[in-house]
């Protein structure tokens, strides 16, 4: 398989502060990579540098072998990168359905919008319940679900998801991860998913990467990292007591 995403020697951050500091990452077509790490160590910055929301200081980002670093965010989106951000980034005066449709705008996905909407509604019934409501009337958690739904409105080559469990009720986290598992099994897009910890990602990851101080410090299958005592003590603290 070719790589959907290749990152080499990435250095990125804000103003003069370097957050991502020489990071390498490769994600195969259709594969799901989960990036775990403590807060403030660069997980969100990594996604922002890939999708072009910030310009990398140095290094290379390739989508399917083509350099995309330095391109404008909208150009990168057209090439097939879909970014489900941590801040939901919804258009607050538009309805839920209008917000979803915005996700079908780039890269010639507009013709398939009806089928895509139907799919989002069947996967996320809580979103369909609110489809006629303006986004500003939604709760924080509901907005997150709409953000994920918008990310499912087009078939990208690479789907970036920033902390899908954040702000969601336990039952909603289960629902969201069920959706992500189905997206993964279809293997139509490669997925890079970020979480603070391992609690929810066991059945989702082909590879888990641990990001610390701006670099990937460990990579491996979930089972391998979960069997590593040092990793467990540092990052998996709660897994022993978790029910699933």
């Amino acid at each position, binding site marked *: 398989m070719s790589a959907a995403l290749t990152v080499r020697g990435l250095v990125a951050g*804000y103003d003069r*502060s370097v957050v991502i500091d020489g990071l390498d990452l490769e994600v195969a077509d259709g594969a799901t990579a989960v990036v775990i*790490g*403590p*807060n*403030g160590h660069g997980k969100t910055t990594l996604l922002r540098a890939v999708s072009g929301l910030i310009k990398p200081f140095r290094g290379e980002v390739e989508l399917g072998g083509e350099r995309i670093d330095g391109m404008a965010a909208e150009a990168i989106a057209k090439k097939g990168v879909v970014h489900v951000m*941590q*801040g939901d980034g919804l258009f607050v005066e538009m309805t839920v359905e209008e917000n979803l449709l915005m996700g079908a705008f780039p890269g010639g996905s507009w013709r398939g919008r009806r089928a895509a909407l139907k799919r989002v509604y069947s996967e996320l019934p*809580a979103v369909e319940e*609110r489809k006629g409501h303006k986004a500003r*009337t*939604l*709760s*924080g*958690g*509901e907005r*997150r*679900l709409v953000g994920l739904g918008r990310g499912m409105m087009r078939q990208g080559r690479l789907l970036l998801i920033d*902390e899908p469990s*954040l*702000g*969601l*009720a*336990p*039952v*909603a*986290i*289960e629902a969201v991860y069920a959706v992500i598992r189905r997206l993964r099994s279809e293997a139509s897009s490669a997925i890079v998913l970020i979480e*603070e*910890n391992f*609690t*929810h990602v066991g059945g989702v990851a082909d590879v888990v990467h641990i990001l610390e101080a701006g670099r990937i410090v460990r990579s491996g299958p979930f089972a391998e990292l979960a069997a590593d005592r040092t990793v467990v003590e540092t*990052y998996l*603290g*709660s897994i022993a*007591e*978790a*029910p*699933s």
Partner: protein
Amino acid sequence: MAALSEPAPAAPAAPAAVLEARGITKLYGGLRAVDGVSFAVAPGEVLGIAGPNGAGKTTLFDTITGHTFASGGDILLAGEPIRGTKIHHRCRLGLARTFQHPVAADTLTVLENAYLAASFRRGRTGRRSRSDDVAAGQAALARVGLEDRATVPAALLPVYDRKRLMIATALATDPLVLLLDEPFGGLSLGEIDATMALIGQIRDAGVAIVCIEHVMRALVALADRVLVMHHGAELFAGTPAEMLKDRRVIDVYLGAGGSGAA
């Protein structure tokens, strides 16, 4: 940390509530976002609030703090009716809150944020004293462990520091009641533990705490009682242990794998 390992002193008798909400209702057109919710919380007590996304938890907070006005019901803070009063009035009476998204005045430094908040603190006299505000702000930063970041612009703080700054600005107002909206969201496991210890210390100092949270491990450990909301109304009220076994709560909120440890 120490505060969590030491058992809380046994309450001699049920202390009087410092915040009491009676039949709070909030209507948005035909939607009953909050539907007749009542609760009371006493000094040194933690009341947890849980419920599915869109259940009305944050809207309930908004009616308590005055970010939106309740359509019906009564709110008593230290015995005084506050429904219909302005946000800053409630703040001066001893009500403080944090938000789901970590907000701060981004162009101000960490210390400037804290002493700006301290200028709204309970019992502050009309005579202005910037040095008193700064001292109160510094004390609040020390309580959350941010004193070393005092000169950093808030915009540059990572999420955990932003969340702690938000708690510090709330503490700088010297609250009787602290409302926390998802204080653990987005934190790593170690940060969750540290934040639990911090909230335990604030509780032990006699502040009444109301905490919206989805991280069940933290909510179950901290809360004396839990109120679960669904479609704006009370679905369940009781202890965390009772909540984890409640069939209705499991069905609409916790889910099959959500027995609380995660």
